[in-house]
């Protein structure tokens, strides 16, 4: 593991909970292992329930820890996994650029988020398997257009050859960070009586940090 991927559990100022959703087989777990451990496994086992991984990155000299929840894609697990949207400040909706069905499901996943997640959640659409360009079934422009219409971030990436994987996650984290720091300015006189985006970002205490340190009792992660 390179230094870049080292994870100092307590050495961070922000903790962002991110969920990875999308149809079964689009490569969610491999995007996650590529981002957190720089690993890829062509025939990794299907995700059952949820799996969890973290990575800490730096934005504007601030250490930001991404706590990423990888979910099972199969329909049957939806009732269970939607519970994990609670407290998430970011979501990656993943589809496979070579499978049009997985792209057609994107609006269904969007609706899932609108129904179960925080309304301020930052969402990014990721077209995975960009290495399969010769089998492409979803034109880049179409997905880009859809993203703009629905106020989503957008990238195409390949967990297999690592193209744009870091970029997708970092772009999402940056956007969340921007939103959160703006909220903090807006809420500089925040009294703590009502929920705010500033509070949702911190799911576990952040020692040594002045910002975002919510109380332990509010750390519900799902």
């Amino acid at each position, binding site marked *: 593991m390179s230094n870049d991927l080292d994870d100092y559990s307590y050495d961070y100022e922000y903790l962002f909970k991110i969920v990875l959703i999308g149809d079964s087989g689009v490569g969610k777990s491999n995007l996650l292992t590529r981002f957190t451990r720089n690993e890829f496994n062509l025939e990794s086992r*299907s995700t059952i329930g949820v799996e969890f991984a*973290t990575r800490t990155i730096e934005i504007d000299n601030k250490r930001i820890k991404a706590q990423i929840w990888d979910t099972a894609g*199969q329909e049957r*697990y939806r009732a269970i996994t939607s519970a994990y949207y609670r407290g998430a400040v970011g979501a990656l909706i993943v589809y496979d650029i070579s499978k049009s069905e997985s792209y057609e499901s994107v609006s269904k996943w969007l609706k899932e988020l609108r129904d179960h997640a925080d309304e301020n959640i930052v969402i990014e659409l990721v077209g995975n398997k960009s290495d399969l360009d010769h089998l492409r079934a979803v034109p880049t422009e179409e997905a880009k257009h859809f993203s703009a219409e629905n106020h989503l971030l957008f990238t195409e990436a390949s967990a297999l050859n690592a193209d744009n994987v870091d970029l997708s996650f970092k772009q999402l984290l940056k956007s969340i960070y921007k939103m959160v720091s703006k909220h903090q300015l807006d809420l500089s006189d925040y009294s703590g009586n009502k929920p705010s985006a500033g509070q949702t970002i911190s799911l576990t205490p952040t020692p040594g940090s002045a910002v975002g340190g919510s109380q332990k009792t509010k750390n519900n*992660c799902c």
Partner: protein
Amino acid sequence: MSFRKWFKFVNSNEFIFGEGGGRGTNSNSSNTTSSSSPSLLKTLSHAFKEKDKIKKSIIADDQIKTIGASFSHLNISTENISSISQLQSLSSLNKNSKQSKRNSFKLDRYSSEKTTPRHSDQYTDLDDDWNADFDNGINIKSSQFLEYPTLRSKKSKQQQQNLYGDDNNTVVPTPETPKSIKEAEEKSALESKYNKFKQVLDESNIDLNKLKKLSWNGIPDELRSISWQLLIGYSPPNSNRRSSQLSRKRQEYLEGIKQVFSVEKEPSTWHQIEIDIPRTNSKIKLYSSEITQRSLERILYLWAVRHPASGYVQGINDLVTPFFQTFLNQYNKDKSISIEDFNPEILTEDELNAVEADTFWCLTKLLEGIQDNYIHAQPGIIRQVNGLKDLITRIDYELSQHLENENIEFIQFSFRWMNCLLMREISIQNTIRMWDTYLSEVNGFNEFHVYVCAAFLVKWSDELKTMDFQDIMMFLQNPPTKDWTNKDIELLLSEAFIWQSLYKNASAHLK
């Protein structure tokens, strides 16, 4: 001192003696007299006091030494035993604990007679007499149920069985020149175990209770296929009916396959199966074989189509593999090759069809008992996760408090334990050994499994209690079971057994 620690102690003690001198490991050697509940409690509390006494005398502090890789969770080391008298007191405790286990087992079996197993009414099999154990109620009378095995099954040469697994041509493992006394002992124990099974299986009307008693402690590899098919209620205990029944079921399966594949496939079910099969045990050679993959696809698809209330759910692809591998193993004549490296191409079409059909029917039987794990909202799993949480609160209150303080929800880590019956946490070899016991229990795959999960979690209690949210999640997602042998599984099962004896019917009035 927590009860859990007491148990670890007793159990470790038992295994040490079993390993070293074979003393006290054979339940035949002591008599069991009573099976009533007060007697169980008395025995347990006696053992508890004994343990306290002995522990004070031999263990200086709470710092626990381990006995080696596979026993890393045991909390007593032979180094701690410093005198003959201590050895003797350990030996007497060992006896007590064994007696209590037998008693508690009997209690459990009797009480479970009252409960009727859940049956699914989602799908009714047209062939209603195929439930092979219809004439065998659960009524274990013998006091010799728990024999703690100290040896692992070893593969040995064996002649091929016929397609019905009921011929008498199977031979006792042929002895090779033993290299040491220990090996010779192992071999003779193995042979004696094999012979005991053979005796039960050779009867014209097999006594399933006898078979369960033996199987709880592990089935010899050579006899697992026939034993599983009997235990799960697929193969009839009456040997006169066996071959006709099995050929009928196999024919029925083939017709089912012909039928569902003659019409257009249900696209979403087929797609899900098709993408899950290549990632089922993908690191094991057997499962990368085309023949295996096509067989498993057919089995899962037919099952899914016939069970529309649940349909195919991810994880069922894991549950089919122990059956497939076990039934295929009958045809692996070269025992130097692990079944995991076996090439199924050497089977004839009939043999392969038989393996496939038997796998299908046994999977069907298994899933019948746990179907509410896979229907909408997965209520069976939710119930088991809650059951596990409840159990941990009783068994290891400190751990349950720690998990709560760290905001760990049981569903976050144990959903998969229930959904895949711990198959994602332990090897397929270990799973197969575990299923010997599950198939010998009354509700092995749902009820007993929760106790096994409790034992599994509590095993790492000390480590977990020092971890925070993130470390706990990461640890439990990838628990250190890579080097587990069947002994580790057997320890887990006996721990689970104790918890079940203590808590099974105790939860209702405490809630």
